[in-house]
C-alpha cells in the first residue's frame, strides 16, 4: 500500500502526475483539452497570448506554454497526455516533443531509442545514487 507521494520524488528525472499535482495543473490541463478541436487549434496558433489569457492559468503556466517548455509545464502540474495536445497542434510527434525534456537532440534521442532505449542502471534513486 502506498501511503505517500513523496517516494516518487526520489525517481531521477521523473515527475509523477499525482492527484495533488492535478489540482495545481487543472486549468493548464483544461486549456490543453480545448485544443482537441481544429477551430480552437487555429485560434490558438493565430494569437497564442490572447488564447492562453482566456484560461485561469498562472502567469508561470502561461509562459511555459508560450515558451513550449514542457519540463516546466510538468513541474507546474501539467500531464504529458494533456500537453500532447499542444505539440500535436504544433505538428510535432511524441518523440520530437519528449526529446526536448532530455539533454539530447531529437536525432540523438531517436538513435538512443533505436539502440534499445535509455538504460535504467543509475537512474533508480536519487538518494541511493543508483
Amino acid at each position, binding site marked *: 500500500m502506498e501511503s505517500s507521494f513523496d517516494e516518487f520524488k526520489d525517481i531521477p528525472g521523473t515527475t509523477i502526475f499525482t492527484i495533488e499535482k492535478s489540482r495545481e495543473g487543472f486549468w493548464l*490541463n483544461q486549456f490543453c483539452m480545448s485544443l482537441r478541436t481544429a477551430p480552437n487549434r487555429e485560434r490558438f496558433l493565430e494569437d497564442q497570448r490572447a488564447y492562453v489569457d482566456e484560461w485561469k492559468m498562472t502567469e508561470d503556466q502561461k509562459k511555459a506554454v508560450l515558451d513550449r517548455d514542457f*519540463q516546466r509545464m510538468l513541474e507546474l502540474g501539467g500531464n504529458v497526455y494533456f500537453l500532447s495536445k499542444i505539440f500535436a497542434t504544433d505538428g510535432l510527434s511524441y518523440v520530437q516533443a519528449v526529446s526536448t525534456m532530455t539533454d539530447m537532440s531529437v536525432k540523438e534521442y531517436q538513435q538512443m531509442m533505436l539502440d534499445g532505449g535509455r538504460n535504467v542502471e543509475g537512474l533508480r534513486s536519487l538518494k541511493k545514487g543508483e
Partner: protein
Amino acid sequence: MAHISGGISTSHVPAVGAAIDMQRTQEAYWKPMFDGYEFSKKWMKGNTPDVAIIVYNDHASYFGMEIMPTFAIGIADSFAICDEGYGPRPIPEVQGAPELATHIAASLIRDDFDMTVLNVLDVDHGLTVPMSLMFGEPDKWPTKVIPLAVNVVMNPQPSGERCLSIGKAIRRAVESFGEDLSVQVWGTGGMSHQIQGSRAGLINQPWDKKFMDDLVNDPENLQYKPHLEYMIEAGSEGVELIMWLIMRGALGEKVQEVYRFYHVPASNTAVGHLILTPKAE
C-alpha cells in the same frame, strides 16, 4: 452461455496508429514491428470473437480533469473516434455490445466494483491501435467492443490486486450472460516507456520479459508488485501494464500461451504482445 475464449495483450503506441494510417508499415523502421503482428492477424481471422472487452486508458482525449474515473465501462451502441490533436484517425466507428455491457456493468457493481457507467464515450488510440494491429484496416470492424477504461494517468491508480480481481469478476459476469457468445478480453498499454522528464526514453527489456513470464505463469504473485516498482523499472508510463492484469484475471487459473512478441522501439516505447487462451480447469 457466454464464455471467455481468449486474451490479448498489446502496447497501444499512438505512432503505430499513425504509421498504419499513413501507409508506412513497410518502411525499414516499422516493418520489424508490424511483421510481429502478422501471426496475430491470421490467428484473429480464425478466432474472431463476437465481443472484445478492451481494457485501455484514455490519454486526455475524452476525459479531461473534470472527471477522472478509476474504472469506467462503455455501454453505448457505438463509440466515435477522438480527435487527439492531429484530427481523428481515419478508421470506422467502434460498435458496442450494449446488452452484454449492461449485464457486465451491473454484475461488476453488485460484485463491489464501483464502476462509472458511460452512455457516451469517444475512444482514442489506447483502444483503436490494438484493434488496428489485430484486425488490419477493414471497412467495418469484425467484432463488437466493450471499452473498459482504467485510470492509469493520475496517481493513485488502482492496485494490481484490484486489477486482477476485476478481471476475475469480468469472467464471472461473462459466464452468467445467457446468450452463447465468444468473448475475448484485451489488456493494452505498456510495456516499459517513459515519455516525460530527463529520464524519458527508458526501456527495460529484462524487466518487460519477466513481466510477461509472470503474467502467464504467476499472476497471483505479480498482482502485488507495487506501482513504485513499475515506475522505477518500467518508466513512469510503464504503470499502464496493470491493465494486462485485468485481461489475465479474466482467463482463469491456467492459460495456454499461443503467441508472444517483443520489439524495441516503437516511438518511445517497448512493444509487447501476447495471445493467451484459457486452459480447462
